[in-house]
């Protein structure tokens, strides 16, 4: 009986190794595919704060674009928002596209709190969770992508970033 249990445990361990190994390789392949995808600015279908559709056509593609993926409750995102608000003039000829999966009301409140709703350079939008995963893979907040005028990726930042570091790539 004891041996039967041990054989079952060994079978389970081997199955687990195979399953985890397969899942790991699949995830790595997906990440690599998304990394290649993101070298060029993806097409968007977002919701702006006035509940209208927001796509790449709403951006001035002759300017570089900074995409900031955020959550209003994340302290590092709040830091980012404060820093952007204080240095908004530096983004005069830049598309600042901020996106979140939160409800529009929360995004609007965030925009008001950090005075991001007035400057025309800043576009606060809502993105669907499924779209986030398909477009960007699994990312944490804040996450920043900087694209040049040719819509090619010049820099990606994970986590909080000081403004000087963003401006360096514009």
């Amino acid at each position, binding site marked *: 009986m004891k041996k039967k249990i041990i054989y079952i*445990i*060994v079978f389970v361990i081997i199955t687990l190794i195979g399953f985890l190994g397969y899942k790991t390789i699949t995830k*790595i392949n997906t*990440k690599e595919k998304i990394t290649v995808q993101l070298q060029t600015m993806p097409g968007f279908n977002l919701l702006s704060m006035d509940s209208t559709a927001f796509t790449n056509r709403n951006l001035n593609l002759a300017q570089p674009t900074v995409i900031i993926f955020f959550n209003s409750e994340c302290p590092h995102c709040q*830091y980012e928002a404060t820093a952007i608000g204080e240095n908004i003039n530096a983004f005069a000829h830049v598309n600042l596209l901020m996106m979140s999966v939160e409800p529009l009301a929360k995004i609007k409140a965030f925009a008001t709190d950090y005075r991001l709703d007035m400057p025309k350079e800043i576009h606060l939008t809502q993105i669907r969770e499924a779209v986030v995963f398909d477009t960007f893979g699994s990312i944490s907040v804040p996450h920043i992508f900087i694209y040049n005028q040719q819509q090619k990726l010049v820099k990606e930042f994970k986590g*909080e*970033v*000081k403004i000087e570091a963003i401006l360096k790539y514009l």
Partner: protein
Amino acid sequence: MENKPLKNHTYTTFPFSKPLYFIGFCLLMILINYITKEFLTTEEMYHATLGEQLSYDSIEKMLALQEKWQWVGYAAIPLIYLIKFTLIAMCLSIGVVLGNYKISFKKLFHIVMVSEAIFLLPAMIKIVWFMFIRTDYGLADLQFFYPLSLLSIFEGGTVAQWWLYPLQLFNIFEVVYWFALAYGLHVVLKKSVNDMLGFVLSTYGVGLLLWVVLVTFLSVSMS
């Protein structure tokens, strides 16, 4: 009282008390961690590495938080090793039951605990290397360094984050550890070292493979 056979001397009549050995081992690991933290990593290094992305204040806040909770890391060392030794002894005990060997879990735990001393060497080599040999280094160099491992054949920054642990794990000290476990079992069970090496690879080896695959899976998922 019977005299125990000399061959079993190392593992049945250990010169030190086993609890004292465990405490001594943990204290040594705490000391190594402390030396690494205090003498190998400096504030300037963090600023040089993280300063491109983070502001000075953010880095200072992070360092202050790290300093505040450092003691938790040291306090966790005995618990971490207790769990590690238990898990490895469990892997070996599966083989013991399957192979009908006569050895207690306590003795297996003891063999695992004594063999672990081998891993003090790479930790000490790292300290000596960066304190006296390669003194011009950054945080990434520290992270990427594991002596005599597969990782050391790759250039820093050329390996994706999720491969760091598996490549680090395949090192000479790990192989010596397998032999140490096999030798310990040979002494107690009086089987050939070759047989016991096969036993270690088929029990601990499988457990290690599962562990590596799990850690890699989690690294990929969280990156």
